[in-house]
């Protein structure tokens, strides 16, 4: 199956798949980039060490889009995965084929959540800092999280239980007392009141609208109060996240220069050409654009107007969420505008991932947890994963 970058045929038992942003010692990790083709890490990601300790066996690596900033993985240097004319996600393909119980992957710009929503899978993006990012290829460090995707809520819960916890090797890791809130059996306040963000339901297609309607109906049937609210602040998340993500990405990928590891151009006349030719030949178009945009936001001329403004806006957005969580237990929103992306749509707008993240940026920029089920996502307050997953489980039982 093309979805794998490496498949471990001998894997048996509780098989887990990791996306190609997560470092493995025995098999290559490419981040979907020609720059890292064939690269083998010297150490393993903490999440995989923890999963092995919990009895999971690595079944292979799933392909990802270059540095995981695209829609669903279509910018991998290996080429887009297209199924029935639609852009497909490698992890989702593997899970749908029943070849793994669950998957872990890096949610940088929402690709994990979009893929889960479009494939009818469950995905949990945990609270920032509750799952170690040690051994994960860094892209947008201030918001990216290792997320779990599985066909069932129970599988997601088991995997999250195995990987959540403090890690001394990750400077952004929460203390164990906070991480313990995600563990199975931890007490949580059930979801009673949900807000549906009106601004997020205006540009969606009929299939996504149907998924939102079904979720609302299911919630109400189970005694959850659903209110439609308008909030222009949260809707600004995308613009601010695009700036922060690109700026951090620009810094993080500056290490790839064709010298210490990774791709090196065959032709160059000096050290500057070695750097430039290696990066130019190895990086894809979306990544190059993101690097240049990120670099410009950090320039002397734009730093205060753009980058600093985005950082301050992040606080305003976080405070807006905090205010909402005084009245509501969770916020319902789509994870994508459509249930399928096509090559034609991408050809028309090759930067679709910079607009489609309208739905995923709120949880990314604030580090809040989000659970995808039935094609929609529910965003909660920090450490509310158990409450969010309990809602997903109720919907799952009802076949929604």
């Amino acid at each position: 199956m093309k979805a794998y970058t490496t498949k471990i045929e001998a894997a048996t038992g509780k098989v887990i798949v990791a996306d190609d942003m997560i470092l493995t010692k025995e098999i290559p990790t490419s981040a979907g980039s020609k720059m890292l083709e064939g690269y083998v890490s010297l150490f393993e990601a903490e999440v995989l060490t923890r999963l092995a300790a919990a009895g999971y066996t690595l079944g292979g690596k799933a392909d990802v889009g270059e540095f995981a900033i695209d829609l669903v993985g279509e910018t991998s240097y290996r080429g887009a995965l297209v199924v029935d004319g639609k852009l497909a996600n490698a992890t989702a393909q593997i899970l749908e084929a029943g070849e793994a119980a669950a998957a872990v992957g890096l949610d940088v710009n929402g690709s994990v959540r979009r893929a889960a929503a479009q494939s009818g899978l469950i995905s949990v993006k945990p609270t920032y800092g509750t799952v170690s990012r040690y051994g994960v290829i860094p892209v947008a460090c201030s918001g990216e999280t290792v997320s779990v995707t599985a066909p069932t809520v129970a599988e997601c819960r088991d995997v999250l239980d195995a990987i959540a916890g403090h890690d001394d090797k990750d400077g952004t890791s929460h203390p164990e007392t906070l991480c313990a809130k995600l563990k199975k059996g931890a007490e949580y306040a059930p979801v009673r009141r949900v807000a549906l963000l009106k601004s997020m339901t205006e540009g969606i297609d009929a299939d996504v609208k149907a998924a939102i309607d079904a979720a609302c109906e299911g919630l109400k049937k189970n005694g959850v109060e659903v209110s439609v609210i308008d909030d222009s602040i949260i809707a600004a998340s995308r613009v601010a996240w695009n700036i922060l993500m690109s700026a951090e990405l620009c810094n993080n990928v500056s290490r790839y220069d064709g010298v210490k590891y990774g791709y090196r151009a065959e032709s160059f006349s000096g050290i500057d050409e070695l750097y430039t030719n290696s990066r130019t030949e190895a990086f894809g178009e979306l990544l190059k654009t993101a690097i240049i945009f990120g670099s410009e936001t950090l320039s002397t001329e734009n730093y205060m107007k753009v980058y600093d403004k985005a950082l301050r806006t992040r606080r305003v957005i976080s405070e807006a969420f905090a205010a909402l969580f005084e009245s509501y237990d969770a916020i319902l929103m789509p994870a994508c505008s459509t249930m399928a992306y096509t090559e034609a749509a991408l050809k028309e707008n090759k930067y679709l991932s910079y607009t489609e993240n309208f739905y995923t940026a709120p949880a990314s920029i604030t580090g809040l947890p989000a659970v995808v089920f039935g094609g929609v996502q529910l965003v909660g307050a920090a450490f509310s994963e158990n409450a969010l997953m309990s809602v997903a489980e109720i919907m799952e039982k009802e076949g929604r």
Partner: protein
Amino acid sequence: MERDTLRRLEMLNQLSLTEAQKEDVISFFADREAELVTLEAIDTSETERMVHVMPIMTVVREDVVMQPFAREDLQRSAPETDEGYWCVPRVVE
């Protein structure tokens, strides 16, 4: 986005774009610039920057003697090495 600015950014980031890519990037910048009004409409004059989404504490680790990575392992994925050195074109003429 001026052409000169783009050229400076290419050099700064050690990238070289084709003419078609330059057009795409200029168009991308125009879209992003247009979106800035969304942020400008938000009053942040009294708001502190939020670099970290959660409180970050300085990690203090015990001093533990560990085996560092072996040089040959570190150079396993290097494009070109020679007797333990990373090879690059001559830098000083």
